């Protein structure tokens, strides 16, 4: 399931981020370890945020636009590809990229892998977890829209099937020449479930635009997918050597101890300072 964000309709009321906090029971506490940045940004308690962007048009005029930031829910997520414990995975029913805390080992490979720099870590917790938007997978399974979408008062967020929303997005762009002819998320890194349309250039709004159309995991899949087999084969190889060595030497007579070893053992016993 996908969400289409029409940036031209956002008024920056932040209903979406409050809805996210309510539904996911996220606290508002300001933690000491967290630097207060100028611009609002995601953190482990904030899974979606509205960023205010100022765009200078070529005509010299300035425009204010609000951009919603959250996990893009890639069709081929790099985080899930980097996660060796399968804590991050694509939910087969909703296509949301979900996080299963019970499986996470806390390695934070996902944070390095994410091209959109979305996952955050609970630095203040003794047993920290990774956090990010789950696309309200539990709501989607009940047939509801994600919390943020259901709370949007201006219709800037639309929920639906990805193909249906792509058709809709292109229809809007076609009908209204003010929009940039680009649906962000349609092709970026193989496509994402969150799609954006805008009347201002995406790069001006803080979007990364130098992405290829194929998912990053394409490059790594060829050899990373062989890692489990290689690991197993290496183990088998070592076991085989060990077994061969054991077979070859099991009938060797025990070596008599050297005089040096004898004196040292005797000395240790004498002092009563035994070692394992």
């Amino acid at each position, binding site marked *: 399931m996908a969400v289409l964000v029409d*940036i*031209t*309709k956002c*008024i*920056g*009321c*932040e*209903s979406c*981020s*409050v*809805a996210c*906090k*309510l*539904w*996911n*029971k996220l606290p*508002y506490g300001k933690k000491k370890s967290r630097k207060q940045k100028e611009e609002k940004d995601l953190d482990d308690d904030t899974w979606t945020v509205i960023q205010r962007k100022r765009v200078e*048009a070529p*005509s010299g*005029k*300035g*425009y*204010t*636009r*609000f951009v919603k930031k959250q996990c893009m829910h890639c069709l081929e997520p790099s985080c899930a590809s980097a996660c060796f414990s399968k804590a991050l995975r694509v*939910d087969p029913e909703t296509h*949301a990229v*979900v*996080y*299963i805390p*019970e499986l996470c080992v806390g390695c934070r490979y996902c944070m390095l892998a994410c091209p959109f720099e979305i996952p955050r870590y609970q630095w203040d917790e003794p047993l920290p977890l990774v956090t990010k938007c*789950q*696309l*309200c*997978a*539990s*709501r*989607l*399974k009940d*047939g*509801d*829209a994600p*919390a943020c*979408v*259901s*709370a*949007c*008062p*201006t219709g800037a967020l639309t*929920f639906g099937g990805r193909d249906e929303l792509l058709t809709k997005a292109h229809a809007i762009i076609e*009908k*209204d*020449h*003010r929009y940039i002819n680009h649906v962000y998320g349609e092709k970026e890194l193989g496509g994402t479930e969150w799609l954006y349309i805008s*009347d201002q250039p995406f790069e001006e709004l803080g979007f990364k635009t130098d992405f290829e159309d194929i998912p990053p995991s394409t490059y790594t899949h060829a050899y990373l997918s062989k890692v489990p087999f290689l690991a197993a084969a290496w183990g088998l190889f070592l076991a085989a050597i060990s077994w061969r060595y054991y077979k070859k030497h099991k009938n060797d007579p025990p070596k008599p101890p050297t005089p040096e070893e004898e004196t040292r053992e005797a000395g240790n016993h004498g002092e009563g300072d*035994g*070692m*394992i």
Partner: protein
Amino acid sequence: MTRKISRRDFLKLASGTSLFGLGVLASGCASEQKDEGGDGWMPDQYQGRGDFPAHLKGRVAISPKNPSIMRDDEKCILCGQCIEACHNVIGVHGYYPLPLKDETACIGCGQCTMWCPTGAIHERPAVDQVEAALDDDSKFVVVQTAPATKVSLGEEFGMAPGSIVSGKQVAALRALGFDAVFDTCMSADMTIMEEASEALVRLTQKKDVLPHFTSCCPGWVRFCELFYPDLMKHLSTCKSPAAMMGATVKSYYAEKKGLDPKNIVTVSIMPCTAKKGEALRKELGHDGLQDVDYVLTTRELALLLKKKGIDFESLDNADYDSILGESTGAGRIFGATGGVAEASVRSLYYFATHQAPPANLLEWKAVRGLTSVKEAQASVPGVGTVSVAVVNGMASGRKVLDAIRAGQGSRWQFIEFMACPGGCIGGGGQPKSQFASSEDMRQRRIAALYQEDRGAKKRASHENAEIQTLYKEFYGQPLSERAEKYLHTSFVDQSEKIFDAETQHAPNTPPKAPKSQPAKD
């Protein structure tokens, strides 16, 4: 002492620990996995099929720089009441075009603070600054109280809506340590002197700027500057009563008392959050001094009194300080919708005829009451029939303003606009002791104001003795050069902050001029 353990014991221990660990892991995998994606609480309209169309959804946008109101996200439950107030009562949310230009529109009226059930939206506080000024011995701190606060402050202390507490309020402010307590009703009389004279000039000589719009409501002024800048020429150039008082204190009063205006701090107690934005206007000041330094809402004053442990109910009534403390009935009814129109016409009648207004203009029922748009006629000899409209709630104001834009302006000569329903008594800074949409509470407050008017010895502004002295000693005549300097202001077209011809015109049509573009939902 360490014990030597055998190789066999060590291996036993290691394997036992591993088996235990494996067991824990296995039990973890076998436990039931809950659905990912949250299970919190949201209000009814977002439950069930959360994408159903709903009337009350989300909330209004509040800029972090908003001078009037703030919101605490932690308390927001997304009930949607602020949208209800902002869209249906005030006509702002949903009336500014998208995509945005520079900012989301807000007139600062604060009706959302009245409707917000959790207190998430509140006024931008100024209590700390006022306390600091009171503690600073080098400052002479002057306070003024708006008419509407006199009939509502008691509610914060458990008194019935409509209890008249003007005397107690003065005593309470003295107890807080203010150096002088003045009455905004007095400067409301000053406003009437200027505004009625100005309206008379427009009615008799400058008929092209009719209808005449009142300009005492800062929410309305901001509304006009944002959405109807083409009609700004109709606005009275008079400052609001609060600003007139501030300007007079920092000029006439300072001169009279031998005070340095730089050391005077003016505080106003207002039923209004928009006044906080008004106080920051560059146009409201002189010689580098702002007319009003700090604005406290009625709610904030109650908070300050409670903080200082002042037992409000047991206070004896006290009188306002001279020389800016006398008020007439005309100044007192400023707090109710229709009050400014009624007070203006009383003095207008006198200025035009030099005779006292007839009894029907002293009990002008047609302009009173909570109807959102009221129309009435007053016949003034020498001027003719003056058609008056009284508007409260800017959502209704849009109908009148759109009619004027459509060329029906000649229907009225004088229009009073108040942003909040019921006028200032229903303002966004008033006590929240009753449900926000309760008309009963507004009616009781209004009734109290008219009771004050009826009980007044003088009922028209020009009869105020202190006003007469003030004009004799300082301003000369209404609309004199000095009066223009201190008591009149100018307005600034703010529409370019929300309207933009290039990005907001209809799809595939050439851009239109921003001013002729109707605001769309």
